[in-house]
């Protein structure tokens, strides 16, 4: 095991403070209503796309098999992908950390004296906080997905990986546009608002120096980058500017082109309940001689940022099967109540809870692993069958067990608390010995009046717990 590196810390929102942020949202009926309504909408749209349970189950099994097969061959496929992209004229870059990825991207921008970068939706660019780094380097980074554009205008981060502005009402967006876009009158008509965004952003697509995008699938055998989207901004970013930079995590690779159709079908049906997205964009080369448009330069940045740590452990590796559909958050009772911002991580919800500890270290994310009722909905809807509840239990063990010499994860034992461990050891001892149990329960009922009135989080919304005056064994004895 390599020496643990210092994990990347997010500038925008510290991962600590999770409990306080969660409480703020739970106490805000408007936000709760927004999330409840949106999640109900997305759950019913997904359900309508999978009317046949047998088809769904067999397609999920195929999706799981494809992802596991490709992860098993990951190092080989990364090399094949690099060879084929390079043969096609696409330049491949590798980054272990967000800082390295930002340096690569900003280096390309500076080489072209770029002043404006238009961005298609990319959660990996959020993960590395590219906008933050670009701003520091004096390069404008403009989000062009409507939802991302809205949250950028508001100075926020996406609250959902598929629908970034899901926490905002149209009235809030109307006010935001009116106050921030020159010459725009207040309107809360959604069509009018979208047309305002369209007008502003079209001018930027026309003049941008760099287009940045994410990648949904990278196909090793053909050297092809695939992008899924509805708006057309992804195509704009990858076609109109003279340079296209794509960024992706190292896990998003498939060996064969034929692996794409089942995963695409699972992705769009699980994410937004569409049988397919409006656009599926496959990019295999920069502009060729004689072609009249398209970027003359295409780059791909492959980012690790903790993924190789998840890869090293057979169970944790399943985290990397994810195709980023967001179905787990749509079905999560915790996400629905606290929304995406409370988590303080780039990826919220169940997938965020299992991937973020690898990116940020358990020091910053130990609390997230406990924010689950383990109801199992996330695992049931996952289109590639990631056993999310099992992984949450594993991460809790990693976070709260005693620090070990050669940990599987950065920050292992970060949540460890000597007193709590001692209490559990005592609990375990009492429950393993009939004599001890009898004595302890006798003492508990005898001294029940000593029970404190304030019992931490429990009594903040409930009446205090107190041992019963008579033990069950005493009641049974009396009855007989």
């Amino acid at each position, binding site marked *: 095991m390599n020496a643990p590196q210092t994990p990347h810390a997010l500038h925008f929102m510290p991962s600590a403070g999770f409990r306080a942020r969660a409480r703020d949202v739970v106490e805000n009926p408007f936000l709760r209503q927004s999330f409840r309504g949106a999640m109900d909408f997305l759950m019913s749209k997904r359900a309508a796309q999978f009317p046949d349970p047998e088809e769904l189950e067999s397609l999920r099994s195929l999706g799981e098999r494809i992802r596991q097969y490709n992860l098993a061959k990951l*190092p080989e496929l990364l090399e094949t992908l690099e060879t084929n992209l390079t043969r096609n004229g696409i330049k491949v870059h590798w980054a272990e950390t967000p800082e390295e990825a930002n340096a690569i991207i900003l280096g390309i921008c500076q080489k072209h004296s770029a002043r404006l970068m238009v961005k298609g939706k990319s959660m990996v660019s959020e993960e590395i906080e590219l906008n933050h780094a670009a701003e520091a380097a004096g390069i404008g980074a403009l989000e062009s997905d409507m939802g991302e554009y809205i949250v950028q205008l508001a100075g926020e981060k996406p609250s959902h990986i598929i*629908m970034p502005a899901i926490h905002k009402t149209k009235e809030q967006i109307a006010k935001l546009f009116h106050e921030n876009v020159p010459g725009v009158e207040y309107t809360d008509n959604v069509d009018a608002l979208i047309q305002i965004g369209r007008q502003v952003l079209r001018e930027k697509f026309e003049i941008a120096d760099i287009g940045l995008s994410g990648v949904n699938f990278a196909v090793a055998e053909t050297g092809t980058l695939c992008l899924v989207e509805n708006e057309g901004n992804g195509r704009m970013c990858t076609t109109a500017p003279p340079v296209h930079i794509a960024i992706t995590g190292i896990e998003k690779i498939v060996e064969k082109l034929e692996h794409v159709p089942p995963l695409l079908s699972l992705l769009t049906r699980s994410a937004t309940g569409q049988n397919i997205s409006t656009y*599926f964009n496959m990019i295999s080369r920069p502009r060729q001689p004689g072609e009249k448009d398209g970027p003359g330069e295409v780059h791909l940045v492959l980012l690790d940022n903790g993924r190789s740590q998840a890869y090293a452990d057979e169970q944790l590796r399943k985290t990397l099967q994810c195709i980023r559909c967001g179905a787990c958050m749509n079905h999560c009772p915790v996400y629905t109540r606290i929304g995406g911002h409370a988590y303080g991580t780039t990826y919220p919800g169940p997938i965020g809870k299992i991937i973020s500890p690898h990116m940020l270290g358990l020091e910053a994310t130990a609390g997230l692993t406990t924010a689950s009722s383990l109801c199992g909905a996330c695992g049931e809807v996952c289109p590639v069958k990631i056993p999310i509840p099992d992984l949450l239990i594993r991460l809790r063990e990693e976070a709260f067990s005693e620090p070990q010499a050669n940990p599987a994860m950065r920050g292992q034992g970060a949540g460890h608390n000597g007193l709590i461990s001692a209490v559990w050891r005592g609990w375990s001892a009492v429950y393993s010995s009939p004599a001890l149990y009898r004595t302890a329960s006798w003492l508990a009922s005898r001294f029940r009046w000593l029970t404190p009135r304030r019992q931490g989080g429990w009594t903040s919304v409930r009446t205090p717990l107190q041992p019963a005056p008579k033990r069950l064994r005493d009641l049974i004895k009396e009855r007989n």
Partner: protein
Amino acid sequence: MSARDRILAKLKANAPATAGELPDVAAWYAAHRSEESNADKAKRFRHFIELAHAEVYAVSRGGWLQKLYEVLSAKQIDKLLVAPGTPHGARAQAELPPLGIACPGYDAPIEGWKAAMFNETPASFTAARGAIAETGTLILWPTADEPRLMSLVPPVHIVLLDAASIYNTFYEAMQTEGWKDGLPTNSLLISGPSKTADIQQTLAYGAHGPKELIVLMIEENI
């Protein structure tokens, strides 16, 4: 060691010994997707792309130009971007201007006329390579003659599709045509006009790409 070598070394040190058998994608499609007649595929394609807000008109092999003219007239569009290097683009460029519709050709690199493309091009006309029935999807492989921005920037995109080239599934299309051995610079699946539901889950068309997508579908029995 470079970042590349460090990442690969970490992965190689921990990769499983074997990946197992190649996933059997073909078997899944064989078990779950049936063969359909051309007429059924055309019907299903039409159903799904219309659900996604596209307009579809059935036309004959010789008669599509008349329908193209009618569609443009009805929408009061008097300028259409065409690809003069293609048979359909050349025909439109030859026959529409006498009817009062200007047909500039995409015959120069975009750098020389980007502003006109973005601001003075109300509609464009391209062909589709094929289509997919189960999702109502057009397959476009832009070429040097018929470039990528034609299907993206103009607010109205009109597409000529031969109904004989509709596949049942995306998988069937790529397998039958052997895509893995020769993908072009850019290949596209298009399943309706550009849209978004990013504001309060309210569907709105014309986000960044075309606001309207119109398909002229050539069918043999017309």
